[in-house]
């Protein structure tokens, strides 16, 4: 389809070769979406990973109620994305949102912030929501990997008088490197493709400040009714992702052997 000129309600689809691709290549809007996607993915993945790691390490300590915490922190996953998005929009609300309210009453800000409707803040606010959504997954995966660290190695480190930080660096982290690799790849793949979260939070606005590639595909297809262009953007996305997926499959294979 990406090789055709295909507009709904227009003429019959016509084969136009690579023309769609050339047009997109020269389209600044396409490159804007590429940039937005990179910022969105980098921010979300690193945030999810860091917070997920901190939480997993906390839960993994010899404390009571470990199973409880593990179950509880995974709960956000079963909440439909639509509900999550609208709840956050309500929290972020300019006039009545509790976040603005709290910040103003403790005197950090004087005027309410336009979290999702100003070009400066929208991307950061959306990324925060995405970190909140994706962290539980990171926690569960890292927690599972932490169980595989042999306890003897911790004891050895303690006998040698290693500090907590050194212990983490030399004992824990090497055991986690593989799961971290897998997590980064998986999350990158999924967040790059994620349409609903951003769409429901901002619809790509304000003035395209948060228009990521999936949103552009949707807008080109079902907004502008230009299936040819939409398919070209989707195909470009797909090519980039194939590279990532291949690396992921390789990693899994290495793990099996």
């Amino acid at each position, binding site marked *: *389809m990406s090789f055709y000129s295909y507009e709904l309600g227009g003429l019959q689809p016509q084969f136009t070769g690579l023309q769609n691709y050339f047009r997109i290549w020269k389209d600044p809007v396409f490159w804007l979406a590429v940039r937005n996607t990179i910022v969105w993915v980098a921010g979300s993945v690193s945030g999810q990973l860091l917070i997920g790691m901190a939480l997993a390490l906390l839960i993994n300590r010899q404390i009571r109620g470990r199973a409880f915490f593990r179950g509880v922190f995974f709960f956000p996953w079963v*909440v439909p994305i639509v509900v999550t998005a609208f709840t956050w929009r309500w929290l972020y609300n300019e006039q009545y949102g509790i976040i603005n309210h709290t910040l103003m009453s403790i005197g950090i800000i004087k005027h309410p912030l336009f979290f999702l409707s100003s070009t400066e803040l929208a991307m950061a606010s959306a990324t925060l929501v995405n970190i909140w959504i994706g962290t539980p997954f990171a926690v569960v995966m890292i927690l599972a990997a932490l169980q595989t660290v042999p306890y003897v190695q911790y004891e050895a480190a303690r006998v040698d008088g290693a500090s907590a930080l050194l212990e983490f660096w030399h004992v824990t982290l090497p055991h986690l490197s593989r799961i971290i690799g897998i997590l980064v790849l998986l999350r990158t793949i999924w967040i790059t493709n994620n349409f609903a979260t951003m769409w429901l939070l901002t619809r790509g606005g304000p003035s395209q400040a948060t228009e990521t590639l999936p949103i552009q595909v949707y807008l080109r297809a079902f907004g502008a009714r230009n299936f040819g262009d939409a398919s070209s953007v*989707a195909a470009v996305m797909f090519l980039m992702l194939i590279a990532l997926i291949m690396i992921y499959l390789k990693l899994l294979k290495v793990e099996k052997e």
Partner: protein
Amino acid sequence: MGRHVNSYVTYLLLLVFFVGFFFPFYWMAVTSIRPDREIYALFPSWIPKDVTFEHFKTIWFEYGFSIYFKNSLINAFFTMGFATSISIFGAYAIARLRFRGKTTFDRLILFVYLVPVIIVIVPFFLTLSKLGLNNTRFGLIIGCTCYCLPFSLWLLKGFLREIPEAIEEAAMVDGATRMQAFFRVILPLSTPGVIATSLFSFILAWNDYLFALVIIDREELKTLPLAIASFAAGHDVSDGILMAAGVITVAPAAVLYLLLQRYFVSGLSAGAVKG
């Protein structure tokens, strides 16, 4: 002594995270049961003073959420049925039988699982239009089933591999056909796997937004997520009503999760989470 202090710090940090993670849910629930004047008060209180179920009544009876709820239920239920019953046979074939191109097939499943919906949604939409299934319940169920299948297959395959092959060989030596061995021996043994798979497909279909957005246009066929989203687009809806809609949508998935948590955890090891 130092250990005690340490564990207090641990609990304190966990508490901070806990509050951070659950505050949005709390606020959603609280907003849904307060009267409008409290929602839009100059200084909203952290704990609701008056409790009212007005918002729930309004959306359920006046805004037709009983219909959307029914639609969501039908969609999730049939998707669960299709995805699980198809994948149990597929998973069995991959786990046990030898056939040409099996490894490729196995790889392809994982590959398809990772391919984003947004990339295939346009061709999918056009195919459904050609079949005349746009804007039908069945079309949406097909969409959600396609979305669930790669993962269901992957999950069930993992469970089936855990069952020793000797068990069904023994049954077959005793004169059972492969089908009999499958139905009488393997299926009962893989019940936890089947439950986990059903749960995941139910919740994936229950939460689906993108397929519904593209496929469904008719008011009387809308699912809950789609209804909420199109609701919020019209600005005349109060936030209390919106949050009540949220609570109604979360409730079934939450109940399932709480009841069957251990199956979720077992599914997780297979890399369960999508999105």
